[in-house]
């Protein structure tokens, strides 16, 4: 059992961190929130680096890397509150195509991603339906809280059919989308109205194995979102630790007080716990281990716990200085929190993990 990043993964993390810190400073995120930038310049940089194709199979023109590399990258982008559609494109749209579409069907769609196209996924089997209509399909229903659903080029809609869930890839121009307001102004969520939308046969993926593929893609999406939350929480902790080392009261740095230290440590341990589980979830996806469903829920639960304590203690330890718009804390705090209710809340995933563990009385030995 080797649970350390290998040299190439450490190098990938270093490169992503360097680029992310340089190209995505707080000022850029503020500009996006304020409406004077749309993040497209940053996206262009990512495309030049081939990052959107990170987990596109090599046979489809991508870098063919695993979920572990994806999670490493997403954590770093979470750390800078990346305002681009990278999360949805890589951990959701590409995942659905890779897991649900055959080689011929996915080739042109994945080629578009490699060329800089963006995508989102609507995991909406409960709220959206599809029925066969001539040589295509007709969609109905409404998908809510779709990450980047308002601005991605394509949306992979997971909808219920008579024979289980199917995946239907729709150009965003074909559907009515409404951006949903959230407290994180650089994060996009949308409601997608699907009534009467027609999907051509070569963009519809149904039949045996697709429902299982959707579930696998969902696990990847959950893990990716958890990684973003961990990265943003880490940034909150970094910001707070720097502050309590500098800020002096009663003649000493406030970081020398045990009450302050212990709060910071509790955030740190929560982040370590969540990061370990994100890596585990990614590894179970990469190795297609049967614990991947459990692992994704464990990761999302632990990420939910860590953002909660990071935000709580983060603001508290900054005192009045953390209660301002000027302080960058609020940027990363928002990004850490925005993922909590999406793709299943902390409470939902915690109960799901508990049920899975109780059903199997699963021991945690990782080597089986």
């Amino acid at each position, binding site marked *: *059992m*080797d*649970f*350390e*990043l*290998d040299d190439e*993964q450490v190098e990938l993390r270093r490169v992503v961190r360097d680029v992310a810190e340089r190209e995505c400073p707080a000022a850029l995120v503020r500009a996006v929130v304020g409406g004077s930038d749309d993040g497209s310049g940053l996206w262009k940089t990512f495309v030049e680096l081939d990052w959107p194709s990170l987990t596109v199979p090599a046979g489809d023109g991508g870098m063919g890397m695993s979920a*572990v590399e994806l999670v490493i990258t997403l954590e770093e982008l979470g750390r800078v509150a990346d305002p681009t559609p990278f999360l949805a494109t890589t951990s959701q749209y590409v995942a659905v195509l890779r897991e649900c579409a055959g080689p011929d069907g996915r080739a042109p769609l994945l080629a578009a991603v490699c060329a800089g196209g963006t995508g989102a996924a609507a995991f909406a089997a409960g709220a959206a339906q599809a029925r066969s209509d001539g040589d295509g399909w007709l969609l109905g229903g409404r998908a809510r809280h779709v990450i980047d659903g308002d601005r991605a080029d394509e949306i992979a809609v997971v909808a219920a059919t008579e024979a289980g869930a199917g995946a239907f890839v729709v150009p965003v121009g074909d559907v009515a989308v409404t951006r949903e307001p959230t407290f994180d102004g650089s994060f996009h969520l949308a409601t997608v109205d699907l009534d009467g939308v027609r999907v051509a046969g070569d963009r519809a993926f149904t039949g045996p194995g697709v429902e299982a593929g959707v579930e696998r893609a969902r696990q990847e999406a959950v893990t990716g979102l958890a990684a973003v939350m961990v990265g943003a929480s880490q940034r909150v902790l970094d910001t707070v*630790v720097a502050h*309590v*080392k500098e800020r002096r009261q009663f003649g*000493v*740095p406030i*970081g*020398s007080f*045990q009450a*302050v*230290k*212990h709060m*910071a*440590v*509790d955030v*740190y*341990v929560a982040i*370590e*716990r*969540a990061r*370990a*589980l994100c*890596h*585990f979830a990614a*590894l*179970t996806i990469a*190795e297609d*281990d049967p614990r991947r469903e*459990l*692992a994704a829920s*464990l990761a999302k*639960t*632990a990420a939910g*716990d860590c953002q909660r304590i990071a935000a709580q203690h983060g603001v508290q330890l900054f005192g009045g200085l953390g209660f301002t718009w000027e302080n960058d804390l609020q940027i990363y705090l928002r990004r850490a929190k925005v993922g909590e209710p999406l793709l299943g809340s902390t*409470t939902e*995933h*915690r*109960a*799901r*993990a*508990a*049920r*899975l*563990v*109780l059903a199997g*009385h*699963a*021991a*945690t*030995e*990782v*080597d*089986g």
Partner: protein
Amino acid sequence: MRLSFDDATEAFRREFVAWLADNMPDAATATSERARSSAYIPPWARLWQRKLFDAGWLVPGNPPEFGGRNASLVEQFVHQEEMGRHKIYPSYNPQGLSIIVPSILAFGTEEQKRRWAVPILRAEITAALGMSEPDAGSDLAGLRTRAVLDGDRFVVNGQKVWTSGAHDADVILAFVRTDPGAAKHRGISALVIPTDSPGLTRRPFGSIVSPDERDFNEVFFDDVAVPKENLIGDLHDGWRVATGSLGHERAMLWLGFAERLDDLIVHGGAALAEQRLAGDALVLDWFGNLAVDAYALRLLGYRTLAKARRGVEATEQSILKLLGSEAVQDATLHMMEALGPDGLDPDRRSAPLDPLHYEAYTASWWERYLRSFAGTIAGGTSQIQRNIIAERVLGLPR
């Protein structure tokens, strides 16, 4: 990153598991006499420990003359993992095997190794650890038991406390102040003190679990003469021995917590199912947390192991101990409360007895909850662990 150990490690595991299958004591033998303190080894357990020693399975990382086979760190880990899975201990004098012997092997002379380390390893004698004092707990370096060199012997005066198993032990590895004028970390020495020395008094006392549970001791030294050759390491250099000893204690301590958490999942799962509580939304919320903690601890532990294998000193022991001990405490408290009035009965076992395991691990939920404080207090309290992490990992000022 990979989810499994390599083939050579798995082959090592298979070899040990096969040996266990042929050599483990049977349940009836083990239930015939229980280990009553951490320095009392029942006759069957002495035979068992001797068998392990002779086969090189007692401390696999040691060379053969000290009960091992020069196994690698990962192999030592797998050995410990299998001991845990089989619910058996290499020695029922854990402080002797895991703290005192490694200290003597690391700092002692050849004569001292022959005289104390080998007999402890072979279960011929048992040993207790004399560190804490009434006024030196977390601040161990503040210890005040005095040893004055007088010709070829030390004269020891003072008091130790919490000395587990001292009343059953043959020797105590005691940390004493030999240079009261030096800075507090610099004036300490380590002595092996036979418990039958004149002037040495042991007074066992009950724990929070029961007045009849006698493991902790007060140990009083009243002009106790200790031969000079019982000094382990250099004079006044005992702090290095002490921190080395605790290093031995802590290196794989997390695995014990990981095993406790796995036990809690299994025992708790069964008890909740019996009470028809396994689907209760409130139960699922904390039980899911137990699952998160159990997996996270093991994964972080594996990472620490990988680092140690590369020779990187891990600052993570504190994280593992903090996370593991608090998770065990949290889950046992939840279990006790989930059972409602049934959780009040102190004699109602939480799980069937494992004959080779300490009874405490299947005792009532109440007792398991109480014992969880051993994890959050002994070996550095949770508060001390938080201080260590804050200062050494986060770099906050002292």
